[in-house]
């Protein structure tokens, strides 16, 4: 189950989708919107993506994770559009016979998602300004 969704992420549905009598462990990761990044306060976020490529990359990640770990089921859901503080932007669930594989693959999947999947976050700061987040890029003097 790999989905890009506009509505709030239903974590119960992810957990159900990976449940299996072959699995002894489920690990669910949920990424949520933090209020403070250092001293800077976030009011809300907007996410956009390149849908065809994002789906292709997420499917590649599922394939690679299954090659590396004995996984029963994987579910990855990323939210798009406008998110308020505290809402979940991403959820990843993995089930496996033994728990160490679920922890390792879940951690690897969110690391890789953040590296390679074409999804972008715009911070809407509490001071009223907004900014696309592009790690490593200095914003122009007058955006």
């Amino acid at each position, binding site marked *: 189950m790999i989905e890009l969704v506009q509505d709030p992420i239903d974590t119960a549905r992810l957990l159900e989708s990976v449940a299996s009598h072959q699995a002894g462990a489920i690990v669910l990761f949920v*990424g949520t919107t933090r209020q403070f990044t250092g001293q800077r306060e976030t009011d809300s976020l907007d*996410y*956009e*993506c*390149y849908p*065809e*490529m*994002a789906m*292709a*990359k997420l499917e590649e990640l599922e394939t690679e994770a299954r090659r590396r770990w004995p996984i029963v089921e994987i579910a990855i859901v*990323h939210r798009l559009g406008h998110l308020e503080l505290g809402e979940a*932007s*991403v959820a990843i669930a993995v089930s496996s016979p033994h728990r160490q594989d679920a922890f390792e693959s879940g951690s690897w999947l*969110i690391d890789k*998602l*953040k*590296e*390679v*999947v*074409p*999804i*972008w*976050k*715009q911070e809407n700061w509490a001071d009223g300004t907004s900014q*696309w*987040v*592009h*790690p*490593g*890029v*200095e*914003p*122009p003097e007058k*955006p």
Partner: protein
Amino acid sequence: MKIDVKMFAAARQYTSQAVVQVELDNPACVANLKQALLEQFPALGPLANHLLIAVDNDYAEDDCPLDEQSEVAVIPPVSGG
């Protein structure tokens, strides 16, 4: 040849366009496209050192050839999750 290039996030913001069209000599590769984009859209300057190009839904190296049927996009550093 003419290549349509999808723009996302800050790349779209800086160019104020969701798709830009770039004219390239034939044959052309990703490196030629990057150079043409930066000349045609100086506003992309802040992304110059971070400009990844996707061709047909995958990241493409500088020597990847392009043709008019290619699905091409500018991928600024991603920040999902």
